[in-house]
């Protein structure tokens, strides 16, 4: 069974996430991820990004762009055999939904 090289690069992915969280600062509360197949059966890395309420409400374009670019700068997704997806929600939204995958 084919597995993308991304599955062997967890520490590299976590290090990149940590760098992005540090560089963007408090607007990003946390970034979680998982590797799996997307709707078309292609391998992908799914990032779940929780933002401060103000960042999600008033500066989504700016902060989301920084997160997406930041991760792409540190991680070579094509070389890892995955397509990157990024979904965002605010701290309050996650507090209301309490979804473990975003915790």
């Amino acid at each position, binding site marked *: 069974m084919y597995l993308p090289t991304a599955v062997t690069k967890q520490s590299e992915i976590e290090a990149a996430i940590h760098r992005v969280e540090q560089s963007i600062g408090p607007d990003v509360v946390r970034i979680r991820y998982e590797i799996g197949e997307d*709707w078309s059966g292609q391998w992908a890395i799914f990032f779940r990004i929780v933002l401060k309420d103000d960042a*999600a409400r008033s500066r*989504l*374009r700016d902060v989301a762009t920084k997160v*997406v670019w930041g991760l792409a700068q540190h991680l070579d997704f094509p070389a890892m055999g995955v397509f*990157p*997806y990024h*979904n*965002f*929600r605010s701290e309050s939204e996650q507090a209301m939904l309490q979804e473990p995958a975003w915790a």
Partner: protein
Amino acid sequence: MGLADDFLEDARSLADSSVLYNRQTLMRRAISTAYYAAFHLFVEDFVEHWEFEDQRARLGRMFNHGPMRNAVFAPKDKRNPTAVEQELLDVITAFGQLQKDRQRADYDGGWRLVETDVRDSKRLAEDVFAKWRKIKGEDIARHHLLSMFGAKWD
């Protein structure tokens, strides 16, 4: 204004209504419509160059969702993409995200949407429109559009 611009306007309107009424079905329609706005943007740009106007709709129906997302592009220098290359990479990433979210919005009944999901889909669609219209005349963009249509390099 063509279909693409109309869809974008509808996506914005649905997004606003969905948040105002806090209605999951409207949120799903907003996200789906945002994707279709981007989809038709590429289709329209491709078919407008076909000389025979009465055949353009038929030509446009050849676009397939999966192959559009799978079209590959790599900058000459991955670490230092040019400004145009970065815009194209942004378009590709945004389009892929819109497509994935549209699949979920239309078929994943378990997805609990929030306002940020909807506002992000609006952001992504607007970015695709703005960036694509800026670069669509560039060689790499024209070649990428061909790749989205399914044309091979060799």
